[in-house]
């Protein structure tokens, strides 16, 4: 019975992520209106008549903003998770592969990891913003750096499991050196764990980007972003609540999508975990 439900999660998650990706891709070539076009006459335009979801206080089309906002969200997510994976994975693999004689290496990596873990994305972004001025770049770097420890931890744990397998022992007996074992045996075997981690991290990155844009430490205007749409909608919550509804829904569905995809992939790629999670 669990098999059916898990597949449902994978399919639902995949579909939600697919919608977000499709909206972002389509926004490159077409949006109903120019998402940044200020139109005083169309201020707070009601939905309908070419403006499917209405317009905001500057007369900007909500649907167009949502579509370009999807692009912003994915852009930040891809770069942030990319930074985390590219930096965190080698560190985790190195820590996981370090032999007992070089336990200090593993210890050092994990201690620095713990330290970075104490700097959440939000604080990093606020610090970066204070020094260099906030923007999409500082948000992506902050979220990426803050996600490195998660990747390093997962990569280390998975690597340690691979290192005790017979085929790694055989490769070592045959005289293969560390880097060769890492590339030929460790990375292919921890790949599925990393893909799951990437999906879950993507969901966290979307949440972080939304929070940062909401606080004014993310993407700068006029580039649309879901978090800032929410922030702009807050003062109009009493008169025009739909302005908060759409970006809120977009954030929640995108995060739900990546979470379900991550969970679904975990169960799909590693059947052993199915029983463990109950």
């Amino acid at each position, binding site marked *: 019975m669990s098999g059916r439900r898990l597949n449902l999660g994978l399919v639902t998650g995949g579909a939600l992520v697919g919608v977000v990706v499709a909206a972002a891709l389509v926004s490159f070539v077409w949006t109903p209106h120019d998402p940044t076009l200020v139109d005083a006459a169309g201020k707070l335009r009601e939905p309908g008549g070419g403006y499917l979801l209405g317009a905001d206080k500057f007369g900007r089309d909500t649907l167009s903003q949502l579509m370009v906002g999807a692009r912003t969200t994915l852009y930040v997510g891809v770069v942030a998770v990319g930074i985390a994976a590219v930096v965190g994975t080698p560190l985790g693999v190195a820590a996981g592969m370090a032999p007992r004689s070089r336990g200090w290496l593993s210890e050092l990596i994990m201690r620095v990891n713990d330290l970075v873990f104490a700097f*959440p994305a939000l604080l990093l972004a606020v610090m970066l913003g*204070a020094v260099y001025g906030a923007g999409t770049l500082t948000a992506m770097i902050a979220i990426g750096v803050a996600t490195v420890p998660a990747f390093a931890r997962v990569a280390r744990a998975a690597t340690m499991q691979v290192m005790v397998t017979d085929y790694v022992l055989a490769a070592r007996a045959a005289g293969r050196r560390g880097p060769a074992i890492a590339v030929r045996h460790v990375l292919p075997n921890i790949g599925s764990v990393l893909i799951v981690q990437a999906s879950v991290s993507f*969901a966290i990155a979307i949440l972080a980007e939304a*929070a940062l844009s909401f606080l004014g430490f993310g993407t700068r205007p006029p580039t649309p972003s879901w978090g800032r749409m929410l922030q702009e909608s807050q003062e109009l919550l009493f008169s025009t609540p739909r302005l908060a509804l759409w970006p*809120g829904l977009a954030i929640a569905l995108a*995060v*739900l999508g990546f979470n379900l995809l991550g969970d679904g992939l975990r169960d799909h790629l590693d059947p052993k975990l199915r029983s463990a*999670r109950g």
Partner: protein
Amino acid sequence: MIVYLLKRLAVLLASVAAAGVAVFAFMAVLPGDPAEIALGVNATPEAVAELRARFGTDRPPAAQFLDWFGGLAHGDFGTSYVTSSPIGPQIAERLGVTTVLVLGGMVVALIVAVPAGTFAAVHHRDPLGAAISAVSQVGIAIPAFLAGILLVFVFAVKAQALPSGGYVPIADDPAEWLRSLLLPWLSLGLVQGAVLTRYVRSAVLDVMREDYLRTARAKGRGRMGALWRHGLRNASIPVVTVLGLQLATLLIGAVVVERVFVIPGLGDLLLNGVAGRDLLLVQGVVMVLVAAVLLINFVVDVCYAVLDPRLRGAR
């Protein structure tokens, strides 16, 4: 146990010191001299030099760092270059508000998650248990500030039962204080409760498979009775760990929620500091938040070791 505790304490102190160096170094790369900024473009070089000496920014960075970091130990966060007022008392006042916000959120999370997670575990084969899991999955996808906006819409805009923002100190009016914090608590707590529900569910499920629970059932206890007597304490070990980690998440979430509800906590102070280019203030608040996260992690590790002695040697 004593050795473990001392070792862990040494790591904590070293981490706080390292974090202090990191925060200080980060802020030190900032372009611009605080004295020049404070005096404006028409200042004479002599006046700038004098103010620099008063700020202490004419000394080498290492001396400045030791002065700043040493001051932190007894609550001296320095004097703001922008407002010329001492930073420590401001942080202390705001820390109280944020602490109340975070702890209230934690209580809400527990009130939601323990019954919901237990119920979902006990009924994990029923549609009702699956429904709770689904609801918690959706809850995880909602950031605290979005939950805050939704709650404002329902309770302030529609029902007009609670204020949409603002903060009343408890000394002024306890009833209004409670009303001003209810929605912020719920925003933080419901979302974390959704996350916690999953952990409670899987912890209770694990416990339900244990032999001692089957024995208790065989002795004639009901399902809930057996869980109550034997299960919850064992299930609490993993939950306590998650709870600790969530406390750190809540602390950061509070920064955003304070902005939604206009609550004068640490997050508000931090963001105002950034807006006013008050860097010593930003440096101080960031240091307090990072130290709090490190301290929480330390307490979690120690609790873990107390609850499960096997883990003491593991790290």
